[in-house]
């Protein structure tokens, strides 16, 4: 399953800022905003998609995301 951990709106995102700047100086002026987070790919055995999502959510709350600075989103769940 795919989890996306992203910097909270309002929280400075130095990496996104740098990439935004670089894209501009490379001539891509049409870019309005860039935010960079983590794409975490997880393989776990779970009875159902629901339980899988639930587990992932707890993992994010406990370890994968820092509530002070990051939001998370469980993106895709596929059968392996």
């Amino acid at each position, binding site marked *: 399953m795919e989890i996306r951990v992203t910097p909270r709106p309002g929280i*400075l995102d*130095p*990496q996104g800022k*740098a990439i935004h700047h670089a894209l501009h100086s490379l001539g891509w002026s049409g870019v309005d905003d860039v935010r960079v987070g*983590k794409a975490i790919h997880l393989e776990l055995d779970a009875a159902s998609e629901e339980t899988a999502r639930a587990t992932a959510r707890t993992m994010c709350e406990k*370890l*994968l995301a*820092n509530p*002070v600075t990051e939001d998370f989103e469980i993106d895709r769940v596929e059968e392996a």
Partner: protein
Amino acid sequence: MRVAVVTFPGSNCDHDLVHALEAVGAEVELRWHRDPGLDEIDAVFLSGGFSYGDYLRAGAIARFSPVMHDVVAFARRGGIVAGICNGFQILCEAGLLPGALIRNESLRFQSQDCRMKVERTDTAFTNAYPAGAIIRVPLAHAEGNYRADEETLARLEGEGRVLFRYVDAEGEATPEANPNGSTANIAGILDARGTVMGMMPHPERAMESILGSTDGVGLFESIMAGVAGAER
């Protein structure tokens, strides 16, 4: 006094801390992160380094080490806890200190001397410094950019819990003096009770003139004095 310096997998400033503490006369034991128990300990130091490689987020994995249960309990009992660099990051991740430390604004590891203003000299960690002291200490980190929400920041400032601030030679907290983009040039903070402290720079690297600065000595002497006082 007896101080425990915790070694997590990936800690690399633990021995530097031992040398610094011994230099001010402390009795120090290195504590492997799996070894429980902090009885008969007067103060706990979480050292710098890259615990668990700083993977995911600096300190995110180390905060679940067995020893952290004891550290949290020790802190709740009012024990002296100091986190330096990676130790600061671990304390934030563990919730013993508010806020978080994100990537330096430069996106580069920053290794340099920095100047800090000692904002308060009436704490367990700074009582040996003269009021308004400005100290020069090395720093070396990639994730030292302090962030917290407005309300937390207001509380920190209001309660005088910003202990160290990056400043220039004149003592001004200018953007140029800020090595990592930290909000309000924050370099180190206290918890509400004033017994848990975290800072990004490395006072243990400023203990001998041959190494360039002795401005770190005050921090360790302060803790010695504080604990000695408490024992009396």
